[in-house]
């Protein structure tokens, strides 16, 4: 029999701060993480803004320069968030018995960095200065750093984190968008609930914004053009400019309620249910499963933190799913969405939303879905939750969509003090 699973730690790294408290404070202050792309000249792209996170100091995370190269900044964020989550849960940063600790990670695609191949490419030039594949294949490739292949492995972030923290229990690495992040959370909850791990980390890391990565973003989402300071990504607003890519990571610590209580850990939230689906009506079906079918008439949740990426067409689809789920004028719970503030964190988004749900449970406050300046005339396609303080929600539904026709949902309930 599966036992109740609770969240006892929640680490979040975002464009708004290097930890959950800083991110929450910035959200409360009305800030948006979206700024003109930094780090490279993005003038060639239609979308030139992103919510970029600061790169952590590898040494502060106990990561050697060699390992920092292998990990890249995306996986450093993952480690940073994981360590914060463990610390909040009151657990050691290096496991005393890693065999009972699981880890489920959702990680994005990794691109080769041209600079890694530069010397080899330069040595491959023929007499006319053009690249000569024959020279490259015959010899020049030996100039490439031998550990370069590790840096482009899809699972390297998990492996480095597991090694760093001594995690040896059940694990998986999922690929994809926000649905992959939800899969990580769901699998971790399942493993802990079934007693196959005492503690499990669950979360994801967004892909770093690079020239090639931003080029890919243009293919996988309807991005917000330009780089101006005006609020661009406004989830569920009919005039939203589109998606703003985000950077960062979020990791949760999950354990069984009895175990957490026995060791006096603070319970931040309870994992109350989950669902996954693909194809037609995936969002509605996933949510329905997460709520165990408790969707007719009155909502079974106080707040829905929607996927809400800010692309009008996709948001309208998602809104239609909620209307199908909660038919009737007042049946739907209020809806919140944070991608207008944090950017789209891809595989990190569900754990990030869960970390923010923890703050909503704790404070009863709700940040605005859109950055300041959204305009008083905004008429969202879905009734959005009013920003500000109020009665703290007790149950929250998180929704996550993949890039292609897949969706997942997780229901969280408020935790209680030990």
């Amino acid at each position, binding site marked *: 029999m599966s036992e109740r699973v609770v969240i006892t730690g929640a680490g979040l790294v975002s464009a708004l701060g290097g930890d959950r408290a800083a991110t929450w404070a910035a959200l409360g202050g009305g800030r948006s993480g979206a700024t003109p792309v930094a780090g490279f000249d993005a003038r060639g792209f239609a979308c030139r803004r992103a919510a970029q996170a600061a790169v952590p100091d590898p040494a502060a995370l106990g990561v050697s320069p060699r390992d920092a190269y292998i990990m890249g900044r995306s996986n450093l964020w993952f480690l940073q968030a994981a360590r914060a989550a463990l610390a909040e849960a009151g657990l050691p940063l290096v496991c005393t018995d890693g065999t009972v600790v699981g880890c489920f990670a959702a990680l994005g695609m990794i691109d080769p960095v041209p600079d890694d191949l530069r010397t080899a490419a330069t040595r491959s030039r023929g007499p006319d200065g053009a690249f000569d594949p024959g020279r490259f294949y015959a010899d020049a490739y030996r100039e490439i750093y031998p550990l370069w292949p590790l840096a482009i492995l899809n699972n390297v972030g998990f492996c480095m984190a597991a090694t760093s923290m001594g995690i040896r229990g059940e694990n998986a690495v999922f690929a994809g968008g926000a649905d992959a992040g939800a899969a990580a959370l769901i699998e971790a909850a399942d493993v802990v609930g079934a007693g196959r791990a005492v*503690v499990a980390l669950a979360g994801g890391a967004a892909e770093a914004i690079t020239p090639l990565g931003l080029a890919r973003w243009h293919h996988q989402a309807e991005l917000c053009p330009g780089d101006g300071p005006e609020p661009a990504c406004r989830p569920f607003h009919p005039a939203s400019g589109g998606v703003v890519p985000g950077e960062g990571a979020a990791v949760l610590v999950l354990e069984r309620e009895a175990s957490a209580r026995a060791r006096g850990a603070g319970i931040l939230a309870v994992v109350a249910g989950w669902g996954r689906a693909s194809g037609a009506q995936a969002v509605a079906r996933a949510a329905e499963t997460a709520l165990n079918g408790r969707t007719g008439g009155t909502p079974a949740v106080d707040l829905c933190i929607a996927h809400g990426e800010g692309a009008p067409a996709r948001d309208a689809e998602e809104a239609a799913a909620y209307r199908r789920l909660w038919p009737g004028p007042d049946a739907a719970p209020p809806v919140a969405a944070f991608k207008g503030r944090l950017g789209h964190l891809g595989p990190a988004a569900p754990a990030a939303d869960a970390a923010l749900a923890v703050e909503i449970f704790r404070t009863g406050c709700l940040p605005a879905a859109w950055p300041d300046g959204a305009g008083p005339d905004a008429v969202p396609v879905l009734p959005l939750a009013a920003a500000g303080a109020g009665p703290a929600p007790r149950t929250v539904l998180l929704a996550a969509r993949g890039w292609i026709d897949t969706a997942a949902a997780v229901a969280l309930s408020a935790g209680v003090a030990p």
Partner: protein
Amino acid sequence: MTHPPAAANPQPPRRRVVVTGCGMITPLGRTTAETFARAAAGESGIGYLTRFDTRGLPCAIGGQIPDSWLDDRSDDYGRRHRPQLALCNRLLLAAAGEAATQARLDALPDRARLGVAVGAHGENPSVDDALFLHRFTDGQGHWDTAAIARSGGYDFMQFYRRKSDLAPVTLAARYGAGGPNLALVSACAAGAQAIGEGTRLIREGRCDAMLAGGAESALDFVGILGFTLLKALAERFTAPERASRPFDRKRCGFVMSEGAGVVVLEELDHARARGAAILGEVLGYGDSADAYRITDTHPAGEGAVLAMRGAMADAGLAPEAVEYVNAHGTSTVQNDVTETRAIKAVLGDHARRVAVSSNKSMLGHTIAAAGAIECILSLEGMRRGVLLPTINHEFPDPKCDLDYVPNVARARAHRVVLSNSFGFGGQNACLCLGRWDE
């Protein structure tokens, strides 16, 4: 503060998961039957690579699937979507087609209860792609992104072909699978993890059937180059077909291959109710992490031990119940020794009485597909009462001292198999499989 101790693992009554369809395409054959027959005959699927110019590379061999085999196996869906499908996903569709036909999946009434879990890594960027970008950088970290945009430098179809999560989404679209959809990227453990995760989803009642497996095609310059730089590939051999020699003293690395394997997993009563033929049972699944070094496996195989013990505990079986181990057996110096140690640690004295063999001696290493292909070959072996051999086992290694079924397949009825898959970076998975006797 220390981690709390593990609680006793609860043992709820659970749904049994059986296999009702198997499909594969490998360097040895277009189908499961063809692959198994050639493997039972001890044939090798390894040869010189012909798909790209390999001059200068220290390793220019692999298990390559002829293009004509794929053309034979493509259906309308595959042909229609070919431009956006990486080769691994075309292989996946071929394997899934065989499995779905065998399981009569088209007759499945409720597709909302059909899920998909696939281990795959998408298409590698080509060297040309990577070097192409040099035109747009000045060596000081500055990019001419306008020129990239003008050049169409990141092709839309390449974007699709590189995405790992396109594999399960493709199968879901092809078979109308509306249930959970998982993309696993756990390196060499991905295929076995996909089957393990699929098994759990069915056990928990979250779906009734799953298409689960793995696919890989990394026989390109970046794939070979990457493992060459890591010194993981076999570079010294007398002939390509003799290069993959797991547990042999003269082994010197693995041989890369491509392929795909897919099973249809189904809840037992669901399969019986629709009269599906049952090919075997997934009795247990275990997985673990080495947490040792990114470049090396734990010398005592501790991660492998955890995964195998996990699978046996999940199956509720003692070591004495295991009759055959389908080894990860990569033919690297390190893996084969540590895996041998791990098997001994898990099975104790019984390890001396258990047959252990490596399909990779004939197939090479199909990375994300390996766990799925080896799962299917294990099930076929139980059905036919055949232990597949470890070929090229000529010079016994004193550190690898188990019964590796050397060179010749062996007729032996057996009922319980452990199938190992240990991923680069330290992710380990083990499936415990059972013969089905009505």
